[in-house]
């Protein structure tokens, strides 16, 4: 099997050249490079917007096709198309700041999003109980204790402050600050290193997750 960069060398070259120009623009204090980086980033933002339009166009095409092909799902597609057309008419014609657009955001979108967040809360609580039942190890025990203590320490229970648990300078808060900071910092550095290595591999055509 050919290496990824040999399967489409022209695309790999374009990726490499544009990537290097933008990357050098970040780290070298050289005016033409910075100008090209800014221009390339603007074009990429434009292309991302066009890609969004294409994605939505594809979605509309699929739902339009379903109207005639699948009568059982037609009502869902009709609701989707209705929502889309009304949003485009409201936000595009009347404007984002119009009272009707704001009313749709306040009375339709916000309640749905807040309720979905509550659904996520229930799912997370269910996952926590499953963890307690099926995968109890040292690490899951530490995880559970951290979650419980962190929730209890958030607010004084019935107005009673427990000396070692509540307050900014309590032993629990200091321990969590040190241990939590260390863990989160390690995770962040790990994620950043992973992003850099994967980015360089794709940039040089060693991997092509976006296809040929």
């Amino acid at each position: 099997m050919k290496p990824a960069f040999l399967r489409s060398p022209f695309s790999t070259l374009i990726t490499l050249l544009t990537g290097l120009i933008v990357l050098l623009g970040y780290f070298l204090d050289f005016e033409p490079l910075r100008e090209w980086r800014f221009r390339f980033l603007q074009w990429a933002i434009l292309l991302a917007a066009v890609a969004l339009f294409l994605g939505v166009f594809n979605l509309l095409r699929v739902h339009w096709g379903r109207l005639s092909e699948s009568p059982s799902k037609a009502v869902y597609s009709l609701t989707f198309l209705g929502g889309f057309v009304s949003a485009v008419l409201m936000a595009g014609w009347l404007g984002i700041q119009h009272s009707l657009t704001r009313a749709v955001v306040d009375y339709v979108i916000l309640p749905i999003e807040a309720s979905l967040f509550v659904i996520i809360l229930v799912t997370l609580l269910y996952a926590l109980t499953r963890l307690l039942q099926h995968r109890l190890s040292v690490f899951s025990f530490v995880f559970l204790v951290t979650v419980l203590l962190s929730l209890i320490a958030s607010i004084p229970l019935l107005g009673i402050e427990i000396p070692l648990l509540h307050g900014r300078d309590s032993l629990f808060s200091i321990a969590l600050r040190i241990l939590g900071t260390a863990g989160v910092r390690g995770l962040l550095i790990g994620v950043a290193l992973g992003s850099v290595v994967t980015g360089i591999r794709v940039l040089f055509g060693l991997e092509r997750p976006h296809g040929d």
Partner: protein
Amino acid sequence: MTLDVPYLDLLGSALGVLLTLLVFSYLLGDHFLVRLVFYGYIGLMAGFAVVIAFNSVLYPLLLQPLIDDPLAGWMQVAVPLLLSGLLCFKVSTRLSRIGNLSLAFLVGVSLAALIGGAIQGTLMPQLSAVISPFDLERSSVAAADRFSGLIEGFLILFGTVATLAYFHFGARPRFSGSARRLEWIEALSWVGQIFIAIALGLIFAGLLRAGFVALVERVQVLLNFVITLQQGF
């Protein structure tokens, strides 16, 4: 007949309450009405996304230059217009290869932004934060607290290294044919898992807290609506 503003407000609240109850009913199982709500919501969001993308990206970057000064505008938008046109071929299964040029450009610039952002936005600040407690001359901490600051710095450094050790997957082959990490890395990564469990526990607790806030807000909206109805608007 003209509707008064309080009636409109009540009508909107009633719609919000109905949608909240419908989404909550999803916990009992998937059904026709909740699917309608989700499809309508996705349609609305797609519509808003298209309008916002047009108003804040396509119009100012592609159309405004052409309207302001057609001749100079064409020079300015020729390349992005060509790239956008090529990207449109991605919709067709037969001609999608023509769009690879634009995709290659988009991937190159996005990756460079990702790498630059990861180095400048995460690696540098985090590494500098790990080092700063040991820089006693520049430390803004009072002299009396420097010792405790130093201990804290050591503990955080140890925890960070232990957490990173967990992601070290380099292994040496053994005579038996199996591969295993070095003993000390194995031990360090075990400690690292404790730090990771604490960090993830804190993130999880934060998510739960945010979820409880959303739950309280929804319940409050439901109660307010019932009280308003009881009081006769």
